[in-house]
């Protein structure tokens, strides 16, 4: 698997924010999965946000991979949330029976961050972050 990554995976405190910029084919999707799971361990992340706002289409392989990522991330100790699903994509996914399973979804990045904060215990994580940054 070579070539530049089509997904930027950024570290933000205890979270990883992966932003998909363009429609990915199957091998690119697999590469994204590998990279992300790798980075969860590397950065000891507690939460993962996958932003798909730029996608106006999401095929069955794509949505299954996202679900798998959620499962894998959970095994590696991180909570995953998918954000920015477009209306058309949302309805198409449901119509084709491609629900993201146990993975949470939220409207946008901001909502996703808010969800992770509350889910992972806002106070604890912030205290820890504030102390470490000082």
């Amino acid at each position, binding site marked *: 698997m070579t070539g530049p990554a089509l997904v930027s995976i950024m570290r933000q405190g205890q979270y990883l924010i992966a932003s998909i910029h363009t429609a990915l084919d199957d091998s690119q999707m697999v590469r994204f999965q590998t990279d992300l799971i790798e980075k969860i361990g590397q950065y000891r992340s507690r939460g993962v946000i996958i932003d798909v706002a730029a996608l106006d289409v999401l095929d069955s392989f794509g949505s299954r991979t996202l679900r798998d990522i959620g499962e894998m991330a959970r095994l590696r100790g991180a909570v995953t949330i998918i954000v920015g*699903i477009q209306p058309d994509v949302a*309805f198409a996914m449901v119509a084709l029976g491609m629900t993201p399973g146990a993975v949470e979804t939220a*409207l946008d990045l901001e909502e996703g961050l808010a969800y992770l904060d509350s889910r992972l215990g806002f106070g604890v994580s912030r205290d820890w972050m504030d102390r470490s940054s000082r």
Partner: protein
Amino acid sequence: MDRDVRTDDSARTAPRTAQSRDEEQLLPQLVAHLREHRTRLRQEWAARIQDAHLLQAMTPQETAAETTSVYDNYVEVLETGSVEALQHYARDLSERIIPRGVETHEVVGIVLLLRDVLARSLFEKYQRNFALLNRVLDAYEPAANRIANTVAVSFVEERERVIRQQQDAIRELSTPVLPVRERLLILPIIGVLDSERARQLTEQLLTGIRTHRAKVVVIDITGAPDVDEAVANHLVRTVDASRLMGASVIITGLSPEIAQTLVTIGVDLTKMNTIGDLQGGLEEAERLLGYTVQRREPADR
């Protein structure tokens, strides 16, 4: 009988040029006849409309005015052979009478009555010359049928246009997405929910969730009389899709009939958050969003 056959034969064997010249003169002759007896024929026609109980939604004055115009238009088409003016008139007429509740059969009925009245008067005029009568009718019938056709088609087209217009109006009004509090939308559904409306509802709801950044949506179906299986499944999918966009959906006002239908047809409602009425739904939504609504005591006001 014998004489009739003979005249018929003689007409057929007449020189071709003479006959076609005759034919050319027939229609003007016919038109002149219809113009001459305009008042009598029109009254006869009006009487027959009355007898047939047609156009009862209109006042006698209106009927008289319209029948006069129809009569003149009719004769004009016979004269010119062009139905364009009639088409315009028929469309215009339809536009005026459709809101009054005039039915298709009435419009077609009156035109056919006029055709019959005029045909009868032609019979009367030419009854002594069977061959000539035949040729007059040959000229008259196609034109008359075309007129009846034009009027009927114009009427139906106009009606369809009105129906389409109303459908558009209903469609635009049918699914309002209303923000009631920050991040809380309500979606009252009133009237029959068919698949087209359900599709539109989904579209409006999902875009509404994005534009209003909604976290909770209350769909109130108190005003929906019934749903079928396809629509119910569509509703479930809409709820799932809303969840994918980060909004939770509360459905309120499920009527006893709909509740029974849904369970009988086996729609999976386990993931649906349903609450009895809109008030309860709003209270639940406010709870989810962390609002507390409190009534102030009169002394504090």
